């Protein structure tokens, strides 16, 4: 490979396309920090190509050579359709439209998994104890608009393979009679109560409504942010069902993250991303996440050795998209 070839993948456009916002960044050359980070509202643009064009224009940037972005939907072929979002595109057609030499479209949690090995200590906040086993599998989970799940497995040669499926759609477990009752309430609404039905923004609202139903309270029409605000509020603004929703959310997340750790043998640690948990900040450590994570009978000791971290990095998926491009360069 000649030096010229090695530069051929640059400049790069990197992206993190969520249900609401699309975040874009620029990388001039290998090893450069990401620059020109800008977030655009998806609803302002008819197509993803329009959104990219608007970004490039606003930042005064030329057409990128390579493009990589994570997107909050399954990527299984050339056709990408966002869930709950009008954007739909063909990867090959989008590459042509952007005039890029290469376009890599990843599931957003696939991108996040690519970022994990490159995260620094100051981009992570530990929850509980445990120590990562080097080269062991790593799990990534993150409640946001939905529940994203992915994993990393060492290929034995200092590289990683990303495991990505639809792990948010495992059937939701229950560890207490109260949870089993909430589950029963939710099952009246949903044919399949997946983990995502509880572990996501809408899931917080579902949990709140289930708690209200069990307590005989009339549920208010709340947004996920309202549930969180009322759970942590004091005085009259405080709401017992909101608090239960948030506590149960953390318990169930611990349970599901523990299941994920067992399923992947993730002795390299569990990383929590997504839009909800990092925003809870220090309050998350007060919730029963870790307690429930390790609460698996005789596998408690196994799980106690596994560290759990909240990803606090600003835009880890952008970094992940860059590393995914590196990995396939």
């Amino acid at each position, binding site marked *: *490979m000649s*030096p010229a070839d*090695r*530069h051929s993948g640059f400049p790069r456009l990197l992206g993190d396309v969520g249900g609401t916002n699309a975040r874009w960044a620029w990388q001039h*050359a*290998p*090893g*450069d920090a990401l620059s020109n980070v800008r977030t655009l509202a998806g609803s302002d643009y008819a197509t993803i190509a329009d959104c990219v064009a608007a970004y490039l224009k606003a930042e005064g940037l030329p057409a990128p050579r390579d493009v990589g972005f994570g997107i909050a939907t*399954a990527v299984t072929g050339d056709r990408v359709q966002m869930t709950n979002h009008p954007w739909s595109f063909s990867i090959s057609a989008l590459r042509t439209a952007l005039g890029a030499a290469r376009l890599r479209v990843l599931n957003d949690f696939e991108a996040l998994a690519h970022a994990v090995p*490159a995260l620094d*200590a100051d981009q992570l906040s530990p929850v509980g104890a445990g120590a990562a086993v*080097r*080269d062991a*599998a790593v799990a990534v989970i993150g409640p946001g608009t939905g529940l994203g*799940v992915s*994993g990393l*497995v*060492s*290929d*034995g*040669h*200092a590289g990683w*393979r990303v*495991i990505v*499926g*639809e*792990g948010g*759609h*495992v*059937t*939701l*477990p*229950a*560890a*207490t*009679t109260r949870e*089993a009752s909430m*589950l029963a309430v939710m099952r009246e609404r*949903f*044919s*399949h109560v*997946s983990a995502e039905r509880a572990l996501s923004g809408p899931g917080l609202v579902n949990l709140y409504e289930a708690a209200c139903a069990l307590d005989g309270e009339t549920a208010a029409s709340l947004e996920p942010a309202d549930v969180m605000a009322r759970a942590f509020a004091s005085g009259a603004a405080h709401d017992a069902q909101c608090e239960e929703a948030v506590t149960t959310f953390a318990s169930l997340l611990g*349970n599901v993250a*523990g*299941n*994920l750790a*067992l*399923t*992947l*043998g993730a002795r390299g640690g569990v990383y929590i991303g997504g839009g909800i948990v990092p925003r809870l900040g220090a309050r998350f450590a007060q919730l029963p996440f870790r307690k*429930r994570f390790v*609460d*698996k*009978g*005789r*596998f*408690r000791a*196994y799980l106690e050795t596994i560290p759990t971290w909240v990803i606090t990095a600003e835009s880890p998926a952008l970094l992940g998209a860059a590393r995914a491009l*590196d990995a396939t*360069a």
Partner: protein
Amino acid sequence: MNPSAFDSPRLLADIGGTYARFTIETAPGELERAATLRCADHADFHAAVSSYLATLPPGRVAHAAVAIANPVEGDEVRMTNYHWQFSIEAMRERLGFDTLVVVNDFTALAMALPHLASSDKRQVGGGQPRERSVIGILGSGSGLGVSGLIPADGGWIALGTEGGHTSFSPRDERELAILHHAWRTLPPRDGPGANKHVSFERLLSGPGLELIYQALAERAGARAAEGLSAPEIARRALGGNDAVCVDTLDAFCAILGTAAANLAVTLGALGGIYIGGGIVPRLGKHFDRSCFRSRFEDKGRFSAYLAQIPTWVITAENATFHGVAAILAAQLRNLSGAAASAILGQIHRARANLSPAERRVADHVLAHPRSVLNDPVAEIARVAQVSQPTVIRFCRSLGCEGLSDFKLRLASGLTGTVPVTHTQVTRDDSVLELGTKVLGNTASSILQVRDHLNRDSIDRAIALLAQAGRVDCFAVGYYSAVAQDAQYKFLRLGLPSAVYTDPRAQAMAARVLGANDIAFVISPSGRKEELLAVADAAHERGARVVAVTASQSPLARKADVTLIIDHAEDVDLHLPMVSRILHLLMIDIVSVGIAMQRQESLAPPPPSAMDELSAAPRARTVAPGVSAAAPLAKITSHSH
């Protein structure tokens, strides 16, 4: 005799909670002398293995692999459902094996999956496997085993998982009733206040079948459910007369559908899900008609995702043995694999502590390790966008003297090749690491050659050489030294011999060979034009050609006898060292053989052979490489 037969049979074992099954593998995939022992009849693992080994014909077992029904981590094995425990390394020594690999039995079964024939499995429901996609496996028996296979570089990575211990998630009223029953009846494990953990294994196992039966009998209003055993429940359910047993088996299949679907979505197992273990394969077609598959696909909005994923029941008897054999073979082949990542792994670990500029170098090395090997410092600095002293500082941060020292360590890690100079490492730990790596690479390559020795071609080479009038050795480049060594050996054996390493001299020498002479050609690639020309010229003169070269090479096809050494080394980067050692050893094998044959057949010795005879015993003693009793490799643990 099978030409691919192993030098010594390999011992394979599959240790469950109740039975220990043993077999020997005599050639790849050839299993013989299978035997099943009751664990309870033997005091410990050593006793069980010894008792099986005693039934074998005399001969040494060098390599063994054991699949065991519990997590394998580190050196200490402690069985979850049985009292046997041992240190793998101590056990290897006690049993006198060169290699003892211990793996989780589900990891072993998983490794067998890509090789299952269509007659080894039965599909349940629809779906098509996607090529080279993740595969999941669940096996219900005395426990619930779970694993997955991730495709990587033409092979597979097996997940070492404890997925059977995930929390049970009920889907309907019947399953909620089962969960409540389990909460009520299971003893608290973690003291008062802790939640009782009801895992999928609690229900999807032999004891689980009994627990489900108790719960559903209670739910059906039976006063005190009789304590039926799992086999009895299955028998009655298959008979169809006992409603609670039918209900129990139905719930079991449904819950297995949930667990299988959870695994499928978590791993993105588009390659399919396999069901093994002791229970399901015995249910026969009943399982195919059960609600397993409909539950598997019943994931609300994601039903279409699951409907495309095929599910199979494993019907093969020996799948675990084949898997454990594949892992053993891969370990013997890639003994150097773990060492290969040492330097890159070190960079990964050190990365967080590097300065931002050094980190740019680290990222560049990790992204393009092979180009870094070739690039001068200025180029590395330019591409990483740092100054040249930063590149040197990066090398020193990793404990290297400088860039060339770093490149040596990187090269030996990347290629499994031994660099020719490795004296610049000064820190003790680095020396140790490097020494271990170099010797490990070499030893594993030697073992590989030993496993693939072709006795027939060695016998024929010995017969030809022993009768030859003269043996001229031909090689070029780095292999000149090997040819020189061959010449010394032949001379020592009393065989007139010359060595030619210059192409023009080679051409001339080949053209004066006689009908009773041999051209002994050494070429790792077997593609050098000048050496192919030597073989042709030798044949024109009526001479025979014995080649030490790669299988399937042009030279191998031309030679009368080929001594095969297949060892790929990246000769662009540095001198091929391991390969030369292997060639030297192959020549040594042949010369020892000639010496032994002469000792047997020549009596009394002709005066000219006196030297050779007195040399023969020494030659044997200096050639322990292939018959050494000393262990050349030890693998003490393997859990993935």
